[in-house]
């Protein structure tokens, strides 16, 4: 049976193309080339590209959020430092109390 299968295409005739092939070719060529937007749309619709794009957007969002967190931490530190400085300038030290003379 294996040999029969292997020899089954020995006398095969060439398959014939469907009728009016030239008409279909001509119609296809007349449609013209795709626009840039059509090509872009086709590219974006590919699952791999869409998935990669989504991951990229999520990654950028995470990086921005992390960056914002570190900036707000710095701001809080600055506020605390400013408060400390202000407070320290009004606290009376032993020198202020004992040294009343100008």
């Amino acid at each position, binding site marked *: 049976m294996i040999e029969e299968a292997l020899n089954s295409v020995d006398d*095969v005739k060439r398959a014939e193309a469907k009728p009016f092939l030239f008409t279909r070719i001509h119609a296809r060529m007349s449609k013209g080339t795709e626009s840039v937007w059509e090509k872009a749309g086709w590219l974006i619709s590919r699952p791999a590209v869409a998935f990669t794009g989504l991951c990229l957007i999520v990654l950028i969002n995470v990086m921005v959020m992390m960056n914002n967190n570190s900036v707000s931490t710095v701001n809080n530190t600055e506020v605390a430092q400013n408060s400390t400085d202000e407070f320290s300038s009004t606290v009376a030290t032993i020198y202020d109390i004992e040294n009343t003379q100008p």
Partner: protein
Amino acid sequence: MNQPELVLLLQQGDESAFTKLVDEWQDMVYNTALGIVQHADDADDITQEVFIQVYQSVSSFKGDSKFSTWLYRITLSKALDHEKKKKRKKRFGFVQSLFGGDDEDQAHSVEFDHPGVQLEKKERANELFNALKQIPDKQRIAFTLNKLEGQSYQEVADIMNTTLYAVESLMGRAKTNLKKVLSSYYDNKIPEQK
């Protein structure tokens, strides 16, 4: 009109030369594509693409090889590209189904019936074509060109841009692998028939 004249007219953009080209070579292109993709509509699409590419890039044909050799190469390239696209679609079929993708590709799993095969050999031929899908591409190409297109080993070597020895080796391995696949198929099939 001989081949060099036809090529020259094509390069000059002669429409009647293009019509003649399609007339003369359409069955060759279609049969070759059909042997690879095993689907009539896809083979028809590929045939159209091949001729469009020929029309657009005939100026790049330098005459280093026969025109038929060039045509075969374009056809095989388009057919294999088509197969790769199909495999990619299958791989992402899960993702597509999440986004409401259609089931068009599932229709491609039906048995392939080559119209040129004699009636009494159709069943065995179907089994052979099924087995052909499971061997490496280069072996499949060599087998298709030799068996379906009647190309000699030397002609197959010219088309595949390789040596005669390499083609002999490819054909040997193709037959060995086909025998393995068919043997496994028959071993699984025959107990079911009992």
